[in-house]
């Protein structure tokens, strides 16, 4: 029996050695790592499951493929929630596609990491200078990505509710001050008619936290990082103004105005009448209008002292640095820069077209239109998230810190700790400055 075992072992080792030899000699038929097979280029998008936006991407690709015969673009769509993980994994395997979309705040990190190559957009029909600044991503003076649209943060309420409690309806020119806002919350809370006086949407686990709440911090006069050199968060994130923001943020919970953790769908809670004022985005405007009609009040962000602020930059398009056919990728990206596609994206997604000319062609966003307030807010109040490769880390730290503050952590200590972590990350990685 033992001799049989030995024979079996020897045979197995021989088989393994043969397999290893074959593997070592392999290599023919490799698909390579270029994101392009000759003149056939691969395009990745985060739009799987989002038929409206995906439809526009498919239309542009179809038009591009039909309009010339040199290049062919083929699409692979990924679901948004797992898109970044797929890209990072592909980058580590050197399998990035030629053309890909990227969430705006991540562009500096992907450029620094060598995922993205700079773009030359001079041949597109739409000039870069005509776009909302938040829709063009630059890093170290080079353009790495551009978007067809942006979104805007806003507050929703009902005119009838504001009128009932004798609350002034704020405008872009005259937004609520901090005092007015807190008075409004106190009046609504005193009525006892709403489960949530204010819903900040704190149930969302992702990028919503820095996107939605860092503009409030900026409006107080603080920031996520000192943007003069992008080398430290000291002073910006733990200075007097930032601490003031943190204390105010926590007070929304302690005073019973906002739930510490919102439900999974704050928009449905607002439409169900459970919430009086909701901090949300332009993407909910149509559904809210469908529900409340002319009673819907779309309110600009509050001016906490340093002017009203909203986050800027949404999904944008770029080219991978490993693309073996950069000429083809550039050709596609420049082809896509036509006003009609800016319009199509904005219509399909209910977002703000990235140029004035396109916005005029989107119903509701034209001058005087019901949703034109979003375009104006994006033009006047948008602040892009810090242009540094450290942003994904800053985003994580800020989200955790804001959660801790909302849960009752000591504001100064929490912000000091956040600054220490961010500064440590900045110095460890020796990130280049933003642009």
């Amino acid at each position, binding site marked *: 029996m033992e001799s049989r075992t030995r024979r079996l072992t020897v045979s197995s080792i021989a088989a393994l050695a043969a397999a290893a030899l074959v593997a070592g000699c*392999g*290599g023919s038929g490799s698909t390579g790592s270029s994101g392009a097979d000759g003149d056939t280029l691969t395009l990745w998008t985060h739009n799987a*499951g989002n038929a409206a936006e995906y439809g526009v991407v498919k239309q542009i690709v179809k038009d591009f493929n039909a309009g010339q015969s040199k290049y062919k673009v083929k699409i692979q769509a990924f679901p948004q929630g797992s898109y970044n*993980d*797929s890209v990072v994994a592909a980058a*580590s*395997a050197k399998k990035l596609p030629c053309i890909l979309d990227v969430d705006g705040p991540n562009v500096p990190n992907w450029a620094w990491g060598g995922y993205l190559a700079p773009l030359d957009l001079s041949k597109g029909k739409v000039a870069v200078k005509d776009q909302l600044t938040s829709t063009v991503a630059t890093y170290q003076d080079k353009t790495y990505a551009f978007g067809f649209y942006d979104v805007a943060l806003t507050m929703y309420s009902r005119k009838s509710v504001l009128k009932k409690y004798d609350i002034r309806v704020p405008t872009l020119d005259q937004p609520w001050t901090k005092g007015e806002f807190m008075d409004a919350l106190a009046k609504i809370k005193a009525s006892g008619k709403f489960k949530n006086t204010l819903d900040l949407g704190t149930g969302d686990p992702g990028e919503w936290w820095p996107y939605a709440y860092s503009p409030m911090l900026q409006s107080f006069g603080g920031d996520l990082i000192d943007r003069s050199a992008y080398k430290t968060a000291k002073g910006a994130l733990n200075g007097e103004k930032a601490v003031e923001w943190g204390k105010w943020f926590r007070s929304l919970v302690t005073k019973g105005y906002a739930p510490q953790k919102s*439900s999974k*769908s704050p928009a449905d809670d607002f439409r169900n009448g459970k919430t009086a004022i909701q901090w949300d985005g332009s993407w909910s405007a149509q559904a809210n209008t469908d529900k409340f009609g002319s009673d819907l009040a779309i309110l600009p962000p509050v001016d906490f002292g340093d002017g009203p602020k909203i986050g800027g930059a949404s999904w944008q398009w770029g080219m991978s640095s490993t693309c073996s056919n950069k000429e083809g990728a550039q050709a596609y990206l420049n082809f896509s820069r036509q006003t009609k596609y800016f319009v199509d994206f904005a219509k399909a997604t209910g977002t703000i077209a990235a140029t004035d000319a396109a916005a005029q062609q989107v119903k509701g966003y034209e001058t005087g239109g019901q949703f034109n307030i979003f375009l104006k807010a994006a033009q006047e109040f948008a602040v892009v998230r810090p242009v540094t490769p450290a942003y994904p880390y800053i985003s994580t730290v800020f989200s955790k810190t804001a959660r801790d503050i909302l849960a009752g952590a000591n504001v100064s200590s929490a912000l000091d700790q956040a600054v220490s972590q961010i500064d440590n990350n900045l110095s460890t990685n020796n990130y280049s400055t933003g642009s």
Partner: protein
Amino acid sequence: MTSASPAPARPGPRTPLLRMLALQAARIALALFFAFPIVFMLVSSLKPDQQIFGDLDSIKAFLPVGHVSLDNYTGVFDRVPAARFLFNSIGISAVTVVLGIFVNSLAAFALSRMRWRGKKIVLSAVIATLIVPFETFALPLVWWVNQLPWLEVNGFHLTLTEGWLDTYQVQVLPFVANAFSIFLFHQYFQSIPKELDEAAVIDGANWFGIYRRIVMPLSGPAIATVAILTFLPAWNSYLWPLMVVQSEDLRPVMVGIQYFFQLNPSWGEIMAYSSMITVPVLALFVAFQRAFVSSIASSGVKG
């Protein structure tokens, strides 16, 4: 001598009845407690979004009342190639289970029944791998599978290709060999008398004959347990496929759930899709429940 002491008090007919009722009530309460999330999922899959959140504050959240329809299920098929994803997951899970049972039982057989030097060290090394979480080596594994060769059939030609990314095999083969399955088989095989092997040898059986004709037929509960324990992670696989699969045609069901998380998620559709992908797992567990419990009990392994 007759005893004057009173006979021990017999429990009255009411006491055991009350105790039984209390026990049953506790069991029902416990069952409901664990069933509620599943009931909520199934019921919510029949309601529009606004109603799901409107009903949350009352018992209506667990009842199919209000505007009930199959619209969410229709929406699932509009948004996601659900049939394709289900087909992929069933195939990937089934092949992983079959190969896993074969490979791991063979390994356990060698470790449990054969006599060879160093097998205790090998067994310890195998068990030691259990403490390494998959997430820690997922990225290096992506790099590794991207270097591996594969034979592709093109008509009548075999072509040697490099890299397993974006294939079915990359979703199956890395998960066939499993330390826990080897350990479980090993523990179970230890409980089978070795005299059976000796009797089989006298009758002319070789090692593979003993494995095939003696040990495996006596290991039904262990096979069922390994089948379930291999099936569950294969079915629930999420991180790995989203890292190594780019083509939609090759994606499994769990990646599909992300299709629903857009700026305004459709929770009714999420519940409908979740119901669709949960039912096969529940059915499998119910089918193998008896063998599963039996194997866990006999092998002394707690999950």
